[in-house]
């Protein structure tokens, strides 16, 4: 009668159901991996523009897969056909899954109709990186810009996405802005 009334004991540890696991990844592991990625690419290229392009390509592959995954997991049965819809999807859902929080802000550009900006006080990927003076305006946020580009391209909204530093008064480190410039055909087709 000893076994009665106890919770079910698994005879074999292999029979236990798998726990869902923690949904987080160690920040230091990612920081190391990312720094290796940047260093590896640095040895392969001759100039800054090429380095930025490589980081962007790496991010593009991530973005494509993140879009597939999130659309299956979170979005249920809906497809995004509107510009504002896909932008707010990136700004909240994608950012939440990748970085654990929503992006700081999403703004519409004032000079051009088809420019939008997502800003972040400090990009997670840039946290442990300091760019040497001789690299000029290089921003490792190009990786994140690549992710955004991957998501937009595969959702049917081709765009040019870049990352910029924007210096802010009263703050030591400049704010990072991801600038999204949509291609011509997007403006004509989509409803904002």
């Amino acid at each position: 009668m000893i076994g009665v009334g106890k919770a079910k004991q698994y005879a074999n540890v292999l029979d236990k159901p798998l726990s869902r696991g923690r949904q987080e990844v160690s920040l230091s592991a990612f920081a190391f991996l990312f720094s290796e990625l940047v260093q590896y690419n640095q040895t392969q290229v001759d100039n800054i523009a090429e380095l930025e392009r490589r980081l962007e390509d790496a991010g593009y592959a991530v973005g494509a897969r993140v879009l597939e995954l999130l659309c299956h997991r979170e979005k249920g049965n809906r497809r995004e056909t509107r510009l504002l819809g896909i932008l707010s999807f990136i700004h909240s859902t994608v950012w939440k899954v990748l970085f654990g929080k929503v992006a700081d802000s999403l703004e519409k550009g004032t000079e051009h109709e088809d420019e939008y900006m997502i800003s972040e006080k400090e990009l997670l990927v840039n946290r442990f990186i300091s760019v040497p003076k001789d690299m000029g305006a290089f921003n490792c946020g190009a990786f994140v810009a690549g992710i955004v580009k991957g998501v937009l391209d595969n959702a049917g909204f081709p765009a040019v996405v870049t990352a910029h530093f924007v210096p802010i008064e009263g703050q030591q480190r400049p704010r990072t802005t991801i600038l999204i410039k949509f291609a011509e055909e997007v403006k004509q087709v989509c409803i904002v």
Partner: protein
Amino acid sequence: MIVCVAVVGHQNNPLYLQSFTEADDALKLHHIVHCSLDVIDERVNNPKRSAPTLNETFLGLLYPTENYKVYGYLTNTKVKFIMVTTDLDVKDADARNFFRKFHAAYVDAVSNPFHVPGKKIASRSFGVRVSTIVKSFGSGTTG
């Protein structure tokens, strides 16, 4: 009974095509899948109804041929899943369920870093999972 499933990319390039019958009419099934792509395009570009149903991923029965029914599903990245079945009465919920599991298997296959988007899906485990899903579809519709 499902006779064929197919995954077609956003430029209508085939990514995965698998038939589940012993009969030798694989070519005919390919042809049916190909024709159904036109139906999908027409549904997506000319919405019959207003906004609420515009964004649905599950497209439903695309068109019935003499002894097959073709169901379609469109993902957010314009990748299309097509399912050809000989069942006469397929419940909507069953078809949706099938596509949900199929979508999960597809997402896992695409997350493979060695998979090149736009090329055929070469993963054996994807094939195995699809076969399992197809087999369980048949038994789910009894009663």
